[in-house]
């Protein structure tokens, strides 16, 4: 007699979801077997998050069906999803900073159990899977890696049969990534199915059994990652080959940005203090700073941009001038450009038009005269930015919030570059941006460098830094390692430098 194969854990057929401005999911099919690690790949904006929200019951699909272990189901809330046996570890942790680990998990579980009664169970699961955490600790005192452990333990406490992991490694050091993979393999070995959302090709090829690739809301293909190369997987994601970046080595010119023994206490009680930072960026070079977020990047950027003024040790100078006491507007006048990490709300005012957003940093470029706004000049600048940087929008009158992430980023990068800054700061310049826009931004930054500007890029993506930078340094717990020429570094070496973080004690 033939053995009946167990039904797949999860089957999605024809899932469709429409939002007012976009068709997020278009007739998506997906199947995950018992004990399988299944990758869901795609760029930002491809529809992965929406699909996961549907599986986890946060949203309902407009069309299509879901089968769980062979039965048709309707998942109308996260509680129902958990009841079925689906657990989800979000990319952005769903944790309350002012509450303890046990309180957080108590809120997230469906059964009503007091934090006190929960504590021993937390310790038990944490130990069993090698994820040590202390139930009484307040979340705001924990590192990012530790917080992720809390999230995973939370899921595991409900004995899920399907675990969804949404971009789990974007906040981890390379070593912590390996630990996570070990945990996941162990879980899969016990029969748990895992949906692994990511756009990181190397990881997927290492970890996952199967992959479903999404592009622009549709399934563009399926694959067995171990049998593919990065190039072939990328082709499925973007439809064309990834371009190889080549930097022409240059003679760097005079020092444009210099930090000497710079220290600054964190203003935010949850922040990181900067300590004894030495950094010099020269004209005609790109220096990169690597590090997982939470190690002082935000503090370093606001110290450099002039948004954080105040007591500090050491000195900052721009183009040879001491700027310690100068604010953001004055630093721009000296020649600083800045692409911040947050687009909407910081790099651009959401409800204002692109023209008005050009005004934001364009005061010294002729857009303001005698205290009066010269809208015509701003409009021309906005139009030029839109055309030079291929920003897809209705016109320069479109509100910033109506542009997609990639297009808004192109606009902001373009706006800053067009001001011909002598020093350019770029924070996570291609975060959440599709491959085409990312390439354009990278080319623009390289062109800026070639034209003689000093460029500083702070990024979590080692690939990006390795393709863009002449020299790379690592920021850990507020301290900066001495920048080294890219040619002398490897990903592993940088990863090791990054483990000066707090979590290395437990790592």
């Amino acid at each position: 007699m033939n053995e009946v194969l167990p039904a797949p854990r999860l089957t999605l057929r024809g899932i469709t979801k429409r939002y007012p401005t976009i068709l997020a999911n278009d007739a998506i099919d997906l199947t995950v077997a018992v004990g399988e690690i299944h990758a869901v790949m795609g760029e930002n904006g491809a529809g992965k998050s929406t699909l996961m929200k549907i599986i986890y019951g946060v949203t309902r699909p407009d069309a299509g069906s879901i089968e769980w272990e062979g039965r048709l189901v309707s998942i109308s809330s996260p509680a129902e999803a958990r009841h079925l046996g689906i657990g989800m570890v979000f990319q952005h942790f769903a944790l309350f900073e002012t509450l303890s680990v046990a309180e957080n998990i108590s809120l997230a579980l469906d059964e009503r159990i007091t934090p006190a009664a929960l504590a021993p169970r937390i310790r038990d699961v944490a130990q069993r899977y090698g994820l040590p955490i202390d139930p009484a600790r307040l979340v705001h005192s924990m590192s990012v890696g530790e917080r992720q452990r809390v999230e995973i333990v939370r899921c595991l406490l409900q004995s899920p049969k399907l675990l969804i992991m949404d971009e789990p490694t974007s906040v981890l050091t390379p070593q912590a990534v390996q630990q996570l993979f070990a945990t996941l393999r162990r879980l899969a070995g016990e029969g748990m199915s895992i949906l692994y959302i990511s756009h990181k090709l190397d990881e997927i090829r290492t970890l996952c059994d199967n992959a479903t690739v999404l592009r622009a809301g549709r399934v563009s293909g399926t694959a067995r990652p171990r049998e593919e190369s990065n190039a072939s997987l990328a082709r499925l994601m973007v439809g064309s080959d990834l371009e190889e970046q080549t930097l022409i080595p240059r003679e760097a010119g005079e020092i444009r940005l210099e930090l000497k023994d710079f220290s600054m206490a964190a203003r935010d009680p949850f922040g990181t203090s900067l300590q004894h930072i030495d950094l010099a960026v020269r004209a005609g070079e790109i220096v990169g700073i690597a590090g997982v977020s939470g190690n002082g990047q935000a503090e370093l950027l606001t110290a450099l941009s002039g948004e954080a003024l105040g007591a500090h040790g050491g000195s900052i100078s721009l183009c040879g001038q001491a700027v310690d006491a100068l604010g953001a507007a004055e630093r721009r006048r000296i020649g600083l450009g800045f692409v911040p990490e947050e687009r909407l709300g910081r790099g651009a005012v959401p409800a204002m038009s692109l023209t008005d957003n050009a005004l934001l940093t364009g005061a010294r470029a002729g857009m303001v005269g005698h205290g009066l706004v010269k809208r015509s000049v701003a409009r021309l600048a906005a139009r030029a930015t839109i055309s030079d940087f291929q920003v897809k929008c209705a016109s320069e009158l479109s509100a910033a919030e109506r542009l997609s992430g990639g297009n808004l980023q192109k606009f902001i990068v373009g706006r800053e570059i067009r001001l011909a800054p002598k020093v350019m700061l770029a924070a996570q310049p291609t975060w959440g941006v599709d491959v085409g826009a990312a390439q354009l931004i990278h080319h623009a930054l390289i062109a800026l460098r070639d034209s003689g500007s000093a460029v500083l890029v702070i990024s979590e993506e080692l690939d990006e830094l390795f393709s863009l930078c002449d020299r790379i340094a690592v920021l850990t717990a507020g301290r900066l390692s001495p920048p080294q020429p890219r040619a002398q570094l490897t990903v592993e070496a940088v990863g090791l430098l990054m483990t000066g973080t707090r979590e290395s004690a437990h790592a």
Partner: protein
Amino acid sequence: MNAEFLIAIITGTVVAATPLIYAALGELVAERSGVLNLGVEGMMLVGALAAFAVSVSTGSLVLGYLAAVCAGMLMALIFAVLTVSLQTNQVATGLALTLFGLGLSAFMGRKFLGLPIAGIHALPLPGLRDIPIAGPLLFRFDPAVYGSILLYFIIDRVLTRTRIGLILRAVGESPSIAHALGQPVIQTRYLAVLFGGATSGIAGAYLSTAMTPMWVEGLSAGRGWIALALVVFATWKPLRVLLGAYLFGGVTILQLHAQGFGLSVPSEILSMLPYVATIVVLVVICRDSKTIRLNQPASLGKSFHPDV
């Protein structure tokens, strides 16, 4: 200054503090859920009128207080529908609620101007009241005063030891995360706001039936705003609300009894004291932005969109 004077001062302080305690504790609960309700003054006035009107008409203070609770909750319901369900700007809506409460209470209270009322009676606690010194001082207050202390204990316990308190705190820190976890954000906020309305109603009732037992337009004279300031002063912790309220009660009474202390300051200047004190207190608390950051509910004043 003799013992009687001292007792009068202390009694006066407690009585002055009681409506502040009710209003501020209720607002604290609302703000811990992330909702800033600037309409406390309006809710207090409507509660004051409701209590007065019903007590005078029915002769029953209990019914009067119940009416005040209902009136306060109705006002709070309007606010909740607008800010929690329809997501209107909380500052503007709270102001609208106050203006509306001022107008509504003035409008509906015209019949009750100048009417006398048999105010609330003291309820000396049997046995305890006869303890020397402490007896007359602490145990001969009216039921509402005891109620305010009880309310403090209840709220403190609920916030820190119960699940509903945990959910409230979570919602106040991040409604979007709470929602993602499947917690009832909208319901929690509704309940918190309605609770604030109920206590503001009681606060107003105390004003019109105990403190100055009568009804005039604008009876609360800004106490609703002081209650709001108290919540900030207390950095959203119930015990500090209690202490702050007594502090303010003290300032208010001092101003009334200044002559007794031998001070000859014009009465208008003395009347400014509570308001000046509020400003001073706010400055002292707010200047330390770290404390504020750690204690203020992170989502305070921001609208929450469940499905955007």
